[in-house]
């Protein structure tokens, strides 16, 4: 074993490899281990000693380890020594009169000596509800009722006073001759009397103002029929059978589900509508361009602009609203003064120049548009930005943009066509045979008529470079 190895072993065993001398390496290892054991034993002794000092049992400390929690260490004194010299405070039976009583009943309770009189005055909890009182005269004048005589009304008010207007209790205790009054009868009578009295009595000094009086009257209005209906409904609710409740729960579940579905449906529809309207306002480039070439607006020159009748039915809506719309609007004299700012556009606060309102073309086309405008001898902004000029300029810009878009699309399609033709040619040549080539060309032409999206013909292609001039003419 080399010295280095020994050191490793020592390290693993956790003993200090003090000596590096290789001559007595075996001995040194044994010694080191023994020394370590000795040290551990000493440490344990110390630990045991410390645990004896703490009030914690050895078993517990063995569980806790030497990290005795703070809470245990605090509990040093187990039992406080009773203080035998101190005298206990005396309690004295004292007589007292409760101020809530109106007689001189002396009750006695135990009070601690040398303490102040009791803090709680129980008399202050002696609260009663104030019940209106009416005079004989008032009754004769205002309160006469066909169903109620004065004695019974008095009795009712007495009960109200006695039971602090607890209607359940009043109704329970109500016994007047052979009359069988419902709780609603009692309440109706009570509140109608109250209301009447408040109405006829002048504003008492206790009441601050007329508004208080109004409030009092409002508070004392009682709708007997409504209350009866409410109770009837409650009763129905109370007396449901188990089957009814189960049915109701099932129905509730279904209704919840339907509502959730409906919400989901509405949300989805809204999302769809939003998408749709966005498309209407600024149609996706692809769609508009695909349908674009078939419209006569570009195909025909000048006079064909508003000839929407020529547009195939399928495409009428999109073409009219998208590409064609601007041109059509521009053409009709009524709509010359179309505002430059579209509804969606945000207006910046503050003063601005009209030419600022002219929309900037798309970044990708910005340079090309400017170049095309330059071709017409125009700058990036009109030199005299009157409203008319501005609107025309915007239109022109828009059209140029559309045109450029279309041109790009056409180029792309043409390129694709070229590739397809080349592959076709290759296929034909590989199969060999003139006849096959003819049929393939037929197929291509039929393709063109059926699918409106793959239109580009040679004629379109030829006319395209001329279109800026067409637009210019239209502008004039």
């Amino acid at each position, binding site marked *: 074993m080399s010295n280095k190895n020994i050191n490793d072993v020592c390290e693993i065993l956790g003993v200090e490899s003090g000596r590096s001398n290789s001559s007595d390496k075996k001995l040194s290892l044994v010694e080191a281990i023994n020394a370590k054991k000795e040290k551990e034993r000493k440490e344990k002794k110390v630990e045991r000693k410390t645990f004896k000092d703490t009030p914690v049992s050895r078993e517990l400390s063995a569980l806790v380890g030497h990290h005795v929690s703070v809470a245990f260490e605090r509990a040093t004194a187990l039992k406080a020594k009773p203080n035998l010299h101190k005298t206990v405070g005396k309690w004295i039976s004292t007589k007292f009169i*409760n101020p*809530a*009583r109106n*007689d*001189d*009943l002396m*009750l*006695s*309770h*135990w009070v601690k000596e040398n303490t102040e009189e*009791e*803090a*709680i005055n*129980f*008399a202050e*909890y*002696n609260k009663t509800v104030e019940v209106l009182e009416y005079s004989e005269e008032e009754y004769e004048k205002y309160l006469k009722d066909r169903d109620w005589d004065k004695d019974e009304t008095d009795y009712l008010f007495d009960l109200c006073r*006695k*039971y602090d207007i*607890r*209607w*359940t*209790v009043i*109704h*329970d*205790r109500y016994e007047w001759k052979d009359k069988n009054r419902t*709780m609603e009868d009692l309440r109706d009578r009570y509140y109608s009397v109250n209301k009447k009295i408040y109405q006829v009595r002048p504003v008492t000094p206790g009441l601050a103002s007329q508004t208080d009086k109004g409030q009092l009257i409002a508070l004392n209005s009682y709708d007997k029929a409504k209350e009866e209906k409410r*109770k009837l409904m*409650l*009763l129905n*609710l*109370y007396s*449901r*059978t*188990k089957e009814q*409740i189960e049915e109701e729960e099932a129905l509730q579940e279904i209704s919840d589900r339907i509502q959730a579905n409906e919400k989901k449906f509405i949300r989805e529809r809204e999302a769809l509508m939003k998408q749709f309207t966005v498309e209407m306002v600024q149609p996706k480039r692809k769609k508009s361009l695909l349908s674009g070439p078939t419209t006569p607006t570009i195909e025909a020159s000048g006079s064909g602009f508003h000839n929407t009748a020529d547009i195939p039915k399928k495409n009428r809506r999109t073409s009219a609203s998208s590409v064609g719309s601007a041109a059509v609007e521009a053409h009709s004299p009524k709509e010359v003064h179309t505002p430059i700012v579209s509804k969606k556009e945000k207006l910046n606060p503050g003063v601005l120049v009209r030419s600022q309102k002219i929309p900037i073309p798309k970044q990708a086309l910005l340079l090309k548009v400017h170049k095309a405008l330059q071709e017409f001898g125009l700058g990036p902004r009109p030199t005299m930005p009157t409203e008319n000029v501005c609107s025309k300029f915007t239109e022109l810009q828009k059209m140029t943009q559309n045109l450029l878009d279309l041109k790009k699309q056409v180029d792309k399609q043409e390129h694709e066509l070229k590739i397809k033709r080349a592959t076709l040619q290759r296929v034909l040549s590989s199969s060999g045979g003139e006849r096959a080539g003819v049929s393939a060309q037929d197929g291509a032409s039929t393709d063109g008529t059926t699918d409106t999206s793959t239109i580009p013909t040679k004629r379109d292609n030829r006319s395209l470079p001329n279109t800026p001039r067409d637009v210019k003419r239209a502008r004039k």
Partner: protein
Amino acid sequence: MSTYGGDEVSAIVLDVGSCWTRAGYAGEDTPKAVFPTSYGYIEEEKEIPPDPDTQMEDVIPTSENKPVKSVEKRYIIGDTGVAAWRENMEIKNPLVDGLIQDWDALEKIWDYAFDKSLRIDPKEHPIFVTECAWNTRDIRERLTELAFEKYNSLAFYVAKNPVLSAFAAGRPTAVVMDCGASSTSCVPVVDGYVLKKGIYKQPIAGDFLSEQLLQLLQQKFDINVVPHYMIAKKTSVDPDQPANVEFKERPNTTGSYHKFMQMRIMQEFKESVCQVSEVTYNHSSINTRPMKYFEFPDGFNTSNGSLRFSVPEILFDPRFITQPQDGPNFDTSALLGIPQMIHQSIGVCDIDVRPNLLNNIILTGATTLLPGFADRVNHELSSMNPGPKIKLYAAGNTIERKCSSWLGGSILSSLGTFHQLWISRKEYDDYGRGIVEKKCDN
């Protein structure tokens, strides 16, 4: 104490129930003294010596002047007094259907409570007495009279048991179902007031069950229930073997005493064996339940099966009543099961308080301690009222369940706000005994 609104004036709370009388100091959690309400009496003939004042000298004694013999009752009150065998001692209960009938005996009971149990002078203490919900005006007034005229108490109050039970449970509004010894009652309480129209009661309770049990054991199972006082010596026997017992010589034992002691055994039988089916009674499922052994005082012991369920079932279905072989039959058609009683009692109340009442149903009285009682009530009530929420309150503490009205009285009379409610001597003098109707209206 005052932090909880208490201001204790060392009142004495006295609850004379149909089986047990509880007496103690207000503000404590258990009564100091509990002893049977039933009292024993022995009629003794006594000679009343003629009045010396009216007796003239030198007059030949005639028949009129002969010493008059009169029958005088010697009262024996208290648990040890009543239960001990005495020659010719009759046992009687001063209450009938919860109402006080025997006023002499009631006075003796009060005397016993004040002098023997609590050892207090009633002049120094306000006295708080409980009463049943259907107590009559006359009885209340007589109680007031008794407290002031005979005992000269400092102050007096009488409150209704259900209200106090509700207070003991900490509820001002509740339906209190009290199934005690003599009667089962169901009383709605709103804001500490008993709703009189909602009181339902019937005499089917603990004592009735005991009687049914005794009848069944003696007639159907042919078991002779021999009370302790008769037994001199007994040896243990195997189950279902005849008892090996020697009897004591007990001459002149009255029938009422014998019955009283038999009922005590039945009480024990109920406590140790009887049970209520947790769900609606089903004979076949009951038969599968384990049997329970009971050893009678004479050493005879047997296992009990369906009997221990079918007798308490009377409380829930009165059709389980066994008609007596001799004597008039019970009319079970007018009787209600306990859940029906609660349901009807709540049904009488206004619809607005019903949810509150259903949410606070208090079970009290010692008979409700039968195992499975609360479960059964809950089961039946929930099937009867599927809509609203039902909550039962049954104190877990046995003492609390047995003495709930005493406990409520103890709480109420130790409150600081209660001072103004006591009827004072002056008020009694001013108004007369009618004051009780005015002041103790709950």
